Each structure stands twice: as C-alpha cells, then as structure tokens.
C-alpha cells in the first residue's frame, strides 16, 4: 500500500468514525447546569435523547462559576441555574434571550450526615457538637447562600462560623460530607433523595425562601433546534416526573 492510498483509507475510516459518533443525532445542545441538578439533568438528558434524537451535553458547576464563564463567551446554549438572579442578570446584560426565562424546579435544602445518629434536627446545629460543617461557597453557589440564611434564621451562624468549610459548588460540598471529611453539611435534597443512608433533617421552609431555579435560553443557543427542543422537553410532564422524583418542588411560578 502506498502512502496516498493509506491516507485515503485512513481518512475514510476517520469519516466513518465521526459519523458514528456525531451523525446519529439530529443536533446538539450544550447546557450549563447548576451542580445540585446534576443527577436529575443526566436522567432528563437520557429521556430527551430517546425522544428527540438530539444530544444534550452537560457542563456542571456552581451557578456563579457558570455565569462568569458565560459572561466571557462560553459556548453554552442553555443555562439551568440554581437561582433566579443569574438568569435574570443574563437577560439584562444581553447574554440570554429575553422572555425565555422560566422556573424549572424549586430546590430544597437538607442538613445531612453519613453518621446515622448525628443529625436530629435544628438542635444538632445548636449543640455545635462537631468539628466541621460543610456548605457550598455562599458567594458563587445559591445553596451556600441559603445555608447561611438558615443558620442566621436559627441564630447559630456566629457560633458556627469557625467550623464552616466551603465546597466550590454543592457537588464538592456533598463530597466533603460523603467522604466523612466533614461530619455534616448543608446539601441539596436532590443529592440524597434517592437513597436513605445516614441521618438528615429537611430544613423547614419557613427558615428560608424557596430556591426557585430558573432556566434561560442563551444567545449562543438562539436558533439551535436542539437547545429549543430541550427547553420544551424540560417544561413537559416527563421531565417534571423526574424532577419531582429527585425531591424538587414542582415549578409553580411562570415568567414571561
């Protein structure tokens, strides 16, 4: 085989491979997802691909991190945030399509420990009988800010301040607790909704304002059929069933 025919064969093989990888899908949507929604997003993505043939590619991070990336031109088509503030800001600053914002889930926060007996309620926080309590970074992660709100509402924030360790996002916060490195921590209910391990206290909703999580179509995704199909799918019954199974409240509020 001479060099040219080798190149020809190699190119044909590469093309065949590329069509196997990319060609099976009609389109691709790049979706930036707040870390608390990781598990639910993966399941929704699978159902979405099965139904539409489009592919959803997820990037997970703290909402603030994702927002900073979007503001610098990250090529995301859709943002699923953990709050309403960033999607609102994205529209105001021209990174997102006006009128595309809607609430896709309402998050709940839980105090969680892998220790079966540690978390018994707000008295666990009041007793302070632990070395480290993990929260998400309150500046970048809405679940972290909510955790601070809860501790302030209980009047224990000042006392617990020196025991706080901060994860870069709620996924890292959960990892701190799951590895036992921190005895307990405030995590998203969605992260532990599908297993019954450890001990947990679902924080009563009068201690914090509900974490309404908004989605928005980004400028980069305008005209992308797959991105628009994903948003439609996210509003549908199939997605809602998955979202509720992960412990989120059903979205009640609608914006236009």
């Amino acid at each position: 085989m001479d060099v040219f025919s080798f190149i020809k064969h190699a190119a044909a093989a590469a093309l065949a491979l590329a069509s196997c990888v990319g060609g099976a899908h009609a389109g691709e949507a790049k979706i930036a997802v707040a870390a608390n929604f990781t598990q639910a997003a993966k399941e929704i993505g699978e159902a979405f691909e099965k139904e539409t043939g489009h592919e959803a590619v997820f990037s997970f991070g703290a909402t603030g991190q994702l927002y900073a990336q979007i503001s610098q031109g990250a090529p995301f088509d859709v943002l699923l945030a953990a709050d309403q503030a960033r999607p609102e800001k994205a529209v105001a600053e021209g990174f997102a399509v006006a009128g595309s914002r809607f609430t896709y889930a309402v998050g709940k926060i839980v105090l969680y420990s892998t220790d079966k007996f540690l978390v018994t309620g707000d008295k666990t926080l009041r007793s302070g009988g632990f070395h480290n309590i993990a929260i998400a970074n309150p500046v970048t992660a809405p679940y972290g800010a909510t955790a601070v709100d809860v501790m302030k509402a209980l009047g224990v924030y000042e006392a617990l301040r020196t025991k706080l360790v901060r994860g870069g996002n709620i996924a890292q916060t959960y990892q701190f607790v799951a590895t036992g490195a921190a005895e307990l921590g405030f995590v998203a209910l969605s992260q532990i909704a599908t297993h019954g391990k450890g001990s947990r206290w679902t924080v009563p909703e009068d201690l914090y304002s509900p974490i309404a999580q908004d989605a928005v179509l980004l400028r980069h995704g305008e005209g992308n059929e797959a991105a628009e199909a994903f948003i439609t799918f996210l509003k549908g019954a199939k997605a809602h069933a998955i979202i509720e199974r992960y412990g989120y409240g059903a979205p009640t509020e609608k914006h236009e």
Partner: protein
Amino acid sequence: MSEFAELWPPVRLTLLLASVTTVFLMIVGTPLAWWLARSRNGWKEAVAAVVALPLVLPPTVLGFYLLIALGPNGPGGAVAGLFGGRSLAFTFEGLVIGSVIYSLPFVVQPLRNAFESFGERPLEAAATLRASPWDAFWSVAVPLARPGFITGAVLGFAHTVGEFGVVLMIGGNIPGETKVISVAIYDYVETLQWGHAHALTIGMLIFSFAVIFTTMLVNRRFARVTP
C-alpha cells in the same frame, strides 16, 4: 487600605505555608535524595519513581486520596485524634502534609543530581582523613551540593506558592487557615471581582519571574565556580 486588609490574609497564609513546607521538604528530601544518590539497592529507582509521581498525576487524584487519607477514617484522622482533633482535612497542618508530598520531586531531583555530581572521590578523601560518615556529609557533601540545596529550596517554596488543585480539594476554603492566594484568585475570578484578581495575579507573576530568574542566576554562578 481596606483592599490591603482583604488581600493580605491569603498572601500571609501562602507565605507561611510555603515556608513551613520548605523546612519539612528539606528535612524529608535531603536523606531521601542522599539515599537515592548513594544506594546500590535495586529498588531505588522504583522509590525515585514514586517520589516523582506528583509531577505526572493530576492534582485531583492526589487531592482525592489525600482527602480520604487525612479524613477521620484515614491515618490523618488517627493523628488528629492524638491532639483532640477529628480530621486533618480542612486544617493548615493538612495543607502542609499535602504540599510536602506534592512538592517533594522538586526538591529531591536537584538534590540527588547535586549529590551524584561530585562522585565518590571527595567522600573517600574525607574518609582517609578519618572523618566519620556523618562528619563527611556535613563538611564535604553539603557544601559541594550547595547549588542543589538552593535550587531545591527555591523550587519547593515556589511550587507550594503556586499550588491550587490539591488545596482546593482538601482545604475547604477557610479564610486564614486554608484560603491561599491561588484559591483567593479563583474566588475573585468566579465572582467577577477582577480588580482584586488582577492585584493578586500581577503579584504572583512578578514573584514567579523573580524566583525563576534568581534560580537561573544562582545556577550559572555555581556552574562557573565548580568546573
């Protein structure tokens, strides 16, 4: 002035961490490098490879295992228990341990090269003058290996200053305890506070340049002195 009050704690912490780490690096690295340079043990290259692993492994791998090892169920938790603690993760001491492991190849490699560079001769000469091995080490080997010590210490210090991934994974971002410069910069960038990010970043750039430049100058000077 308030800006200084906000930017100084991570800088102070980073310098403290790098200084303490460098001291431990020299204490651990010197005998290790000496053994690697002098031993005829067949396993020594395997040991050298283990020491060099942090050069290749992503910080996430080290960070993940360190988090488990330093935690309450690992050896770190057992050590912390002796002092009434529960875990070495999220502590300054934990960061020192992580940094020593992470920066060790940067100290061991130049030291080993330095110890190997002058061969057996000077030590044999010292032995014929009835110097004990201990005495020969301090009065012959250490002065001859001085460029290796300087390079190793400078690189170990600088590499600790520039550490990010491991600290992020085992530190918990605690102001004054584990929030070092690199983590502070990351925070400022992620929250779009670019003024602060610039201030720290430019400082890091100047510092890093000064360190590398100084090391090169030192190496050149010694290269000229020792034929």
